[in-house]
């Protein structure tokens, strides 16, 4: 009898602590200023929606907002695959006012990232799209989330939401300069090709169609790479053509648009100063639309 009580007490205590802990962590997530917490907890009224993986963070919001006087919302996350982006963009467009423009870095179509997808467990209480995606990705993880609520918060995504508990995440971007030896060695980097998983083009197409159906203009870009590194990507042009053919949209190629080494954090990422140069380039090319009126407004 004592043994049965012992076992019952252990199970009861585990679930009690798990649920209480889960509730506290859920409350913290909801209070966070992290982008996905805001996506699910607040009404967002952004003019420009920015989408990408870690390279999408180069869409440096403070600079875009300063230069265009338009509000932005960035859905990008390190290593984000396009199927996850599809769920998040879908939720964004469903819950919020449609933006004027969606700017998407298409190099995020290069991967499947099931691990990251399951890390978005943290936000499953608010999104049936995420729940379904995670269930399709790993039924075990989906079930584990039901069993343990603490497990839902066992992710870097949650840790980031804690980091941005009381501060904005809009300037989330590398602030370091690439090490000189790494920069010098870029020419020796092995040649490689961008792979496109089977699911990528259909998912990208669905994102574009959903956005267009809400009246959102869609612009596709290839964000900058470290110039010598960009030369090691053997199929960049072919990749661009594939995306254009699959979507019927023009892809603006900015892969080699930033040449200042000080503007890079590593081969694939601009730092803040590089991002400013890149955004200026986008503005100059009219990617954000005609800016004359806005600049005047900004000067006022």
């Amino acid at each position: 009898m004592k043994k049965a009580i012992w076992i019952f007490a252990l199970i009861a205590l585990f679930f009690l602590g798990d649920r209480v802990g889960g509730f506290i962590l859920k409350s913290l997530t909801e209070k966070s200023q992290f982008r996905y917490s805001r996506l699910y907890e607040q009404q967002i009224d952004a003019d420009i929606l920015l989408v990408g993986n870690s390279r999408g963070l180069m869409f440096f919001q403070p600079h875009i907002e300063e230069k265009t006087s338009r509000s932005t919302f960035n859905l990008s996350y390190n290593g984000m695959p396009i199927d996850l982006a599809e769920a998040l963009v879908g939720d964004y467009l469903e819950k919020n006012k449609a933006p004027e423009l969606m700017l998407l870095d298409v190099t995020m179509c290069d991967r499947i990232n099931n691990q990251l997808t399951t890390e978005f467990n943290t936000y499953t209480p608010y999104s049936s799209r995420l729940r379904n995606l995670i269930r399709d990705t790993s039924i075990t993880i989906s079930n584990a989330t039901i069993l343990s609520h603490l497990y839902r918060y066992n992710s870097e995504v949650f840790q980031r939401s804690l980091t941005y508990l009381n501060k904005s995440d809009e300037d989330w971007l590398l602030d370091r300069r690439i090490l000189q030896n790494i920069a010098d060695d870029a020419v020796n980097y092995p040649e490689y090709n961008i792979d496109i998983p089977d699911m990528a083009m259909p998912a990208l197409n669905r994102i574009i169609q959903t956005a267009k159906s809400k009246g959102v203009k869609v612009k596709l870009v290839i964000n900058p790479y470290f110039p010598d590194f960009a030369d090691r990507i053997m199929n960049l042009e072919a990749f661009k053509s594939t995306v254009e053919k699959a979507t019927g949209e023009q892809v603006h190629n900015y892969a080699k648009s930033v040449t200042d080494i000080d503007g890079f954090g590593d081969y694939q990422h601009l730092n803040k100063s590089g991002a400013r140069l890149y955004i200026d380039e986008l503005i100059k090319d009219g990617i954000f639309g005609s800016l004359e009126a806005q600049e005047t407004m900004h000067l006022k």
Partner: protein
Amino acid sequence: MIFNSIAFLVFIGIFLPIYFNLKERGQIWLCLVGSYFFYGWWDWRFLSLIMFSTCIDYFVGLKMENENEQASRKRLLIISMVVNLGFLAFFKYFNFFIGSFDAAMKSVGVDVGYNTLNIVLPVGISFYTFQSMSYTIDVYFKKIKVEKDFVKFATFISFFPQLVAGPIVRAIDFLPQFSAGARKFNWDRITSGLGQMLWGFFKKVAVADSLAPFVDQCFAAPDGFSSLHLIIGIVFYSFQIYCDFSGYSDIAIGLARILGFDFPDNFKTPYFSRNFSEFWTRWHISLSSWLRDYLYIPLGGNRGGGFGSYFFTAIALIIPVFLSGWYWLILVYGVVFFFIFRFAKKDIRNKVEVFTYMNLVITMFLGGLWHGASWAFAVWGYLHGTYLIVQRLIGPYYKKLVQTLRIPRPIVVAGDIAMVYFFTCLAWVYFRAPDFDIANQFIMGIASFEGMSFGSIINKFMVAKGVILIATLLFVEIADFKFDFSSLIKTNPVFRVISFAAILWVIAFFGSFGANSFIYFQF
């Protein structure tokens, strides 16, 4: 099958209820069948290897008992050694030997053109081979009685909780436990075993597997990271390997306890060691004590040496010369040994001391190679051998210095622990790096002190999580040392429930559930 997998949960869920409802004989049979199933789950073809080793050592043992003539007993021991070490040599070291020989020959301009073979390393072969050899050696020296019951002997060799990654349990400790009668469902044993298993899972699933991605990143291309990043990388690796391996040992020991068997500890907070001799009495104790008893002491230990000491020292020192192509090392060896022999000639105590150094280097060198067929492991062994020698050389002077300067004891203790940890980490770089170039890059990267700001760290979230987990681990280990948690778990049901639930919460919140394999499986 690995402990941190669903397959194992199902296996043990079926195994335990049957086990506790059988009589003694049935339980031993079930352990044997279960062990073969557990091992065969990974690759059934290698079951024949275990079975063959088992049969050889079983019959060698029986035959030895009936032989009174020392020469015949020795022959039998040699047969067992040749078979066991032959399997190990072929499956683990064949490509290494061939490759090293080929490289050595090429370095002197001879191209022998030997090809390596595509050999799969049977998981756990180093562990069960050493376990099996300890039996025949102990029988030869008449330290233990021969086990006549084949089923018990086969279960001793293949016992699934510790089959693939230890601890290496000696026959003298293990075999008598088979005759202790049927194992009843013992609540105290189950709760204490479960506690140790849970703690092992925490170490493996929460700590080791959470640190692994950061460490992998650092060792993949160290020249891409700042000094601080690499320092954190090696600190994380030191805890990753400790938690991975000691976590496995905890699970194995806890599981064995549930099944009614007591195994000795394999780790005792090794990073709190104050010197390297102490480190080796706290780290992988079952291997270090095996090497001490079956290699270091037979070589002469700290009492002298003979042909074996000369022979193995020569091998340990000469082969790297050919492989590295650093022939100038021969000149260095010549000069060093000239002075060593002069020193040894002066006094018999000096001679004994020199033999002790040789035996230490040989033991640590072979201990390094036991881990894997690579010169990086040998370097790791050399480094630890060197540490032990330097410690013997300067130890007395260091003690005198501390006494003379009257340095407060807490500072001395902290300094000793920090020093041992620092040099242990240095050796870990060679243990973990895929090759020497990467290892050297790693060390040079740290030594450059380029990028010591927190901003130079690439994945701060992994660092934050790692630091929290390591702090939790150290806190519990220190608290356990002070308050003896194991006893509290046995005696205090409230403490037991709370601590078990707390470990489960931490695993749920921090655990990495990718069913990652244990590092020591590769050895």
